[in-house]
């Protein structure tokens, strides 16, 4: 479980303010969860409790409902979300191996986010570039013909870019 960041804490305050004007009733559960996720980018336990308590629904029920839907996520999205294609073409060309490589390199499982929130990994369905299979997206950028060696390179590149940005920020 990722601890709440200072940004999360600020967003939770925003959520607290917005929720006050929302209508009540069980039927509001999904809309309020969506509102919370729009503000926070994900649904930390604190947000689930806020929604549950506001609607006077059991917290564990709220969790049960939220976990039913793919649209809700329970860990923060990484700054560089890695999406590994598991469509048919990519599957046939070893998408599973690419996924495993990312998991090993980043030391997290699919669906999780790294401690520093730089990366998260998820599997996606066909992204429409089957000719380039196996395919992975890092942020918005698509990478075709993925191979284990490329996984190393991609992660390294993001890390180097970040270090560079940090240095520049420090210099100015």
């Amino acid at each position: 479980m990722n601890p709440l960041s200072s940004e999360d804490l600020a967003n939770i305050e925003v959520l607290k303010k917005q929720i006050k004007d929302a209508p009540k009733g069980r039927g509001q559960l999904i809309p309020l969860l969506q509102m919370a996720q729009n503000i926070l980018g994900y649904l930390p336990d604190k947000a689930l409790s806020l929604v549950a308590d506001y609607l006077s629904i059991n917290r564990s029920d709220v969790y049960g409902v939220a976990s039913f839907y793919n649209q809700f996520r329970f860990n923060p999205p990484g700054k560089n979300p890695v999406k590994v294609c598991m469509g048919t073409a990519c599957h046939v060309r070893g998408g599973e191996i690419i996924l495993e490589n990312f998991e090993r390199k980043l030391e997290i499982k699919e669906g999780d986010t790294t401690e520093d929130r730089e990366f998260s990994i998820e599997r996606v369905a066909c992204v429409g570039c089957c000719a380039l299979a196996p395919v992975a997206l890092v942020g918005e950028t698509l990478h075709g013909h993925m191979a284990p060696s490329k996984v190393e390179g991609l992660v390294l590149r993001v890390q180097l870019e970040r270090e560079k940005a940090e240095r520049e920020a420090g210099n100015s």
Partner: protein
Amino acid sequence: MIILTVDGRSIQAPAGSSVLSACLFADIFIPHLCWLESDTVADAPAACRLCFVEIDGFSEPVTACTVTVENGMMVHTDTEAVRSLQKTALKLLLSVHKVDCKNCPADKACSLQDIAKFLGIGLGCKPFERVLKELDVDSRHPAFDYYPNRCVLCGLCVRICRDRHEQPMLSFAGRGFNTVVGYFAETSDTDPDCLSCRGCLDVCPTGALVEKSQV
């Protein structure tokens, strides 16, 4: 008192009770996993599909936990149709079950073992394919570890927690084959309530909930 006949034997049961509870109290065993002693016919979730019986006047086997006893009812717990349904239901449960009794704390005190023995079958799941969940153990709960591949999703733990606590911690989470018993508490420190309650641990018919070893 209502008087009914089960497998040729005349038994008594309080009005309003289910056929399942009437039989169990008369020491006539009917396999069941999802039923709590306090369940009325209306409360019973009838989820495990194991407690089938045949009753004269019904065209098909029915779940004993959802039928109210009536005077003169003729119940049969041991027909071919009943046993075949029960074996299939058990095999379906076992098809998503990691059978490894030697390394399971429930070994010898497990409802699945008991029911399989009662039905005279093993713990295999043929002709169904065995499909296991990726996650072997979920350790988030302060009082127990949860083993999804030993859970039959009978729901007893969820219901007990709900009955006893205003702010229950357990619910079903996910959906379809990925359904698990989910745990939700906002704080991660041990809730002293859980350790004194133990409701879920006591009620679980399998080895899915294992008390964390006291450190």
